[in-house]
């Protein structure tokens, strides 16, 4: 489903060259639920941006569902994001002043589909929020907002679901519920990629890709976060 070869991305920050991604290659197969884990500043967010077609790599090749998307134009990338990728963000990123249902409909409108309303209702049912369709995001709880965001990501039937710290802004119980939802979606055959710094979240996935200093690395042994609720790692804020 995803094949990335030798991805390189460098930034110049205050005169210093930062190698955000340094020769990263990875393969994610259809139906997998994979975690990309790494500490702050490891380059995992950059990797997610490139895998999510929000950004382009400096060199390397990236195949999404068999299509080389590493050299596409901005508008073509927008279309790839629209049809093949569903994003779920840490802070939900729903649009204010629009109902939950309208938020879910939006990607379909950009795709120019005429069955937007029906598809959006189905997606809201999938995440178990059919009864809250006409509430605005500000009237929903954090867990409900994240469910709406997941419905929005699902509604276009994308090749891959990209979740960036999906539980980061939720309490642990709600976080567990959201992860359970991801798992059930994965059980239905959905390919899911979860980006997180949290080993405990990563533990819910079938396998994990550990990033350190822009490279794929072996995770350090004896990670204190693993299988330990309320750990230090969970409390650490994610530096942006």
């Amino acid at each position, binding site marked *: 489903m995803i094949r990335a070869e030798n991805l390189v991305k460098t930034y110049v920050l205050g005169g210093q060259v930062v190698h955000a991604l340094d020769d990263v290659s990875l393969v994610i197969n259809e139906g997998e639920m994979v975690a990309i884990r790494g500490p702050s500043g490891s380059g995992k967010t950059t990797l997610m*941006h490139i895998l*999510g077609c*929000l*950004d382009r790599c400096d060199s390397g090749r990236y195949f999404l569902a068999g299509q080389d998307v590493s050299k596409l134009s*901005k*508008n073509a990338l*927008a*279309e790839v*994001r*629209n*049809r093949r990728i569903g*994003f779920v*963000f840490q802070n939900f*990123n*729903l*649009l*204010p*002043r*629009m109902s939950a249902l*309208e938020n879910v*409909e*939006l*990607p379909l*409108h*950009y*795709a*120019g589909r*005429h069955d*937007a309303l029906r598809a959006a209702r189905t997606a809201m049912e999938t995440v178990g929020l059919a009864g809250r369709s006409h509430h605005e995001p500000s009237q929903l709880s954090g867990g409900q907002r994240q469910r709406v965001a997941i419905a*929005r990501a699902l509604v*276009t039937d994308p090749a891959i679901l990209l979740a960036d710290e999906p539980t980061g802004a939720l309490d642990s119980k709600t976080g567990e519920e959201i992860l359970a939802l991801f798992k059930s979606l994965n059980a239905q055959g959905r390919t899911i990629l979860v980006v997180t710094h949290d080993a405990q979240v990563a533990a819910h996935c079938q396998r994990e890709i550990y990033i350190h200093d822009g490279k794929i690395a072996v995770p350090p042994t004896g990670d204190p976060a693993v299988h330990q609720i309320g750990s230090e790692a969970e409390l650490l804020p994610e530096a*942006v």
Partner: protein
Amino acid sequence: MLFWMIVKVAFKSLMANKLRSVLAMLGIIIGVAAVIAMLAIGTGAEQQILDRISAMGTNLLIVRPAPRGTAGVISGTQLNLTDDDARAIIKKIDHIHALAPVVGRSFQIKFLNQNTNTQVLGTAPTYLPIRDFEIGTGKMFTDFDVDHWNRVAVLGPVTAANLFGFSDPVGQTIKINGINFRVTGVLKSKGDEGWYNPDDQIIVPYTVAMHVLQGVTYLREIDVQCEAGSDLDSVQSDIYAVMRQRHKTIPGMPDDVMIQNLAQYVDAFSAAAATFTVLLGTVGGISLLVGGIGIMNIMLVTVTERTREIGIRKAIGAREFDILSQFLIEAMLMSAVGGLSGMGLGIGAAWLVGRVSPFPTIVRFYSIVLALVFSAAVGIFFGFYPATRAAKLDPVEALRYE
């Protein structure tokens, strides 16, 4: 579908910042109101004067001596029009309803200790119906008075008021240039027409004006009223022919009289009025432009404020065009709401001006369309730059924006 969703969201975001939106739209509101109100005043003035001109009848021909001169340099007027010419015109040419010889000059007028200086117009009784004058009190002098050089006068209402105050002038005797004239009547007021005031003049028999007052043998002009529905051009060429014959103009030389008709006046006046209206419209247009800058300002703020929203929209697949059109529609909605409010305000202002001031106002449909189209264009023009900025935002940067 997407369009209505965008309009709905745009409307909600305008409502979320009511004061700011109103302030941004104020420029457009005032601009549109100014265009409509100013054009209404301009059109009203134009219509009023055109009405007066056509009330005199557009089948009026005015025969005047041609200006003399070579190569376009006018070096005086020929003094060649006589009352015999006038008699010849009415005798030889068909389709003429009435005719009035006209001669005139300013004189000192006295009544007891009151005196004034005004135009004394010598003409025939036919002048009144031709030029749409009516007698207010007393009566007009007659052809008998003209033929017998009787020293009788009809006063314009302003002249009458200047000389007599509130007392009745009919039957009184005034002195024109030291010569006694008996007042037979006073005209009804027509109102000031700008280039001259028809209410401030004295009308006397043209024979008296020529031979007694001015001591001349020529006329200033001959006013010819054609029969209703007759062909003005053919009457005009008939008059030219009679004049060439009477004045023994050598074939090949230009005519020594010129004939104007009121249709030409109407054309000339319309052209001048159009210039005036364009001027007023431009002033309003400039204020619309200023209003557009206000909208651009607010749209730039909005784009910055909603950077994150733009990032989200891009992440879920909005193309540059989608973002561009969204912000353009918002700018247009703002200018359209402003334009409609301005339209209401402008029509209201025009109505109020018409009610409380002596200027009549006419709101023409085209001025409303013009103002609205212009304000929409301003919205597109000034919304374009902020919308382009929004569309060009990098999605990663935009998503990171706090």
